[in-house]
């Protein structure tokens, strides 16, 4: 075992405010022409180690990812969503553990909390695209707590015109106790641009983890996608060391428990 690689966060602490998640089946939700802006930064590894439970291990180098969705309409109505996650691995797969999330409508807040365990709070979320930059921001109680820009935009064409999003994992209360619930989404890209991200405003404490500080820009990608949200398929046990694998497939019909 590679003990040094596992995080030291006590999952019971985080679970105290975790949403209850309904792991039942639901009809796929299709959202068209969603604008997604995701900005990655390197963060100090020790911050990630303190904030990750033993059930996942950090990516090296440690990364945080701020993601903004701007959805013009559909089954949930028009909404904007923002979430911040820490890059990590379950087993050998890249994931991001979400530690803060915001949505600007009650419907979106409720859906993402109940179905996927996002710790959504109501806030003013804005993702906008200008000729020279992309901007994502979150305001709570009139105070801007997050603003991430991307400049130096370059279109990605051909086979490389996609973004490989790491699936979001959320602390949630599930029937068996506390689990990490995974966002299940598939993406169809219609346009992708990439730039250099900058954290203009980053209020760590207000965002839920003051120890996580973006220190080095990696990439900022803006995409227009048609996306489909699927029922949750996996729950990760946050206290089983990642190297042993604590991922459980949710039984649906004849699906076997892994």
């Amino acid at each position: 075992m590679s003990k040094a690689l596992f995080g030291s966060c006590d999952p019971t602490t985080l679970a105290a405010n975790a949403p209850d998640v309904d792991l039942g089946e639901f009809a796929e939700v299709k959202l068209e022409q969603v604008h997604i802006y995701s900005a990655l930064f390197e963060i100090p590894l020790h911050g990630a180690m303190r904030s990750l439970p033993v059930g996942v291990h950090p990516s090296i180098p440690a990364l945080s990812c701020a993601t903004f969705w701007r959805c013009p309409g559909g089954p949930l109505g028009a909404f904007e969503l923002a979430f911040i996650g820490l890059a990590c691995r379950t087993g050998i797969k890249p994931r991001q553990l979400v530690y803060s999330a915001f949505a600007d409508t009650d419907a979106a807040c409720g859906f993402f909390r109940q179905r996927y365990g996002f710790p959504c709070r109501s806030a003013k979320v804005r993702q906008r695209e200008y000729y020279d930059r992309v901007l994502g921001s979150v305001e709570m109680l009139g105070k801007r707590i997050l603003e991430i820009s991307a400049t130096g935009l370059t279109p990605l064409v051909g086979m490389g015109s996609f973004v490989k999003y790491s699936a979001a994992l959320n602390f949630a209360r599930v029937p068996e106790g506390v689990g990490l619930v995974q966002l299940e989404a598939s993406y169809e890209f219609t346009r992708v641009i990439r730039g250099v991200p900058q954290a203009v405003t980053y209020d760590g404490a207000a965002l839920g983890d003051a120890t996580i500080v973006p220190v080095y820009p990696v990439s900022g990608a803006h995409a227009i996608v048609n996306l489909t949200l699927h029922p949750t398929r996996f729950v990760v046990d946050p206290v089983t060391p990642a190297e042993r694998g604590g991922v459980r497939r949710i039984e649906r019909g004849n699906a076997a428990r892994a």
Partner: protein
Amino acid sequence: MQFGLINELSTPRPFTAEGQKAVYEHAIEQAVVAEEAGFSSCWCVEHHFLEEYSHSSCPDMFLMAVARATRTIRLGFGIATCVPAIHSPIRWAEKAAFLDVLSGGRVEFGTGRSSTWNELGGFGARIDDTKKSWDEYVRVIPRMWTEERVSFQGSFFAMPERMVLPKPMQKPHPPMWVAITAPGTEVDAAERGLGALILSITDVERNIPRFKAYRDRIRSCEPVGAFVNDQIAVVNWLFCHRDGQYARARGEELVRSFSYTAAQTVEISEAYPSSNYSALGLLGSLRADPSAPDDQKQLASGLCFGDPAQLIDVIQRWEAAGADQLIFLMQSREILPQKELLDSIRLFGREVLPRFASQRSAASGGGQ
């Protein structure tokens, strides 16, 4: 069919100087035993910042140590990273030639461009340009070896006229290769007359179209060097034991460990969307289907884990598919005791390798 070994110099935590030295010394001993057993090449990767997975930041130094401990085994850069932020092409030409001279003309020069954010991000490389800069490197390095004085003006590298020294012992120069992970790179290799160092560890049959594409294209290549290296070498795993079931179980442990350490890295395609990296590199390709995080990926059918008879069968399939060489990974995080690993090499040398000896003597070896 020829056989080689390739070293990642994977190192278990906790990291200590003594533990590090043991990893390096074990790998050198493996090369010595492999040479005695009839292996024809020893390769070494170049990686930076890849904790546990590979502590092989200076392959030229490792290969020099192997050169001084052996007599005949060829010494392969697997690969030399051709990225301006990491190395100047002058330094690669110098290092490879230096090793070639001191080893008596045994260098194989593999080239590549890295696929991780750990490395390219760590060195501040221009990620969108790595293919183009690699192309310049593979064209200018053989000139540095063969021309008395060289000047060069490219998009990523320039130098006024200088004599690059030393010149290699092999004439006209060491064979050149390119690491191939992403689909289509085999065509890049073939177009330039470079040997194909296939790094996607997978089933035999899935490689056949790739081999065919390479063979078809290299017939009309315009070589970047002074000769065409038309060899296909496939990186594989090896653990040979009298008990095939035991060998398979050990092999699964090795692959699991390798995949786990590979997972610690950040692939470019996960962190930095780029048309230059639309496919996963070797590390990413070893992970299971991302849509099924709890599924263990089945071992590929072409891996060499088994008893001697089983391995002969697998290798014959690689041979029929068109591979000229198999280059074996044998260790990960020192999970195999050194004695067991050396016994595997010796058993392979006694009972498997001789079955392919006639083909070995007939195979072409590139530069002389």
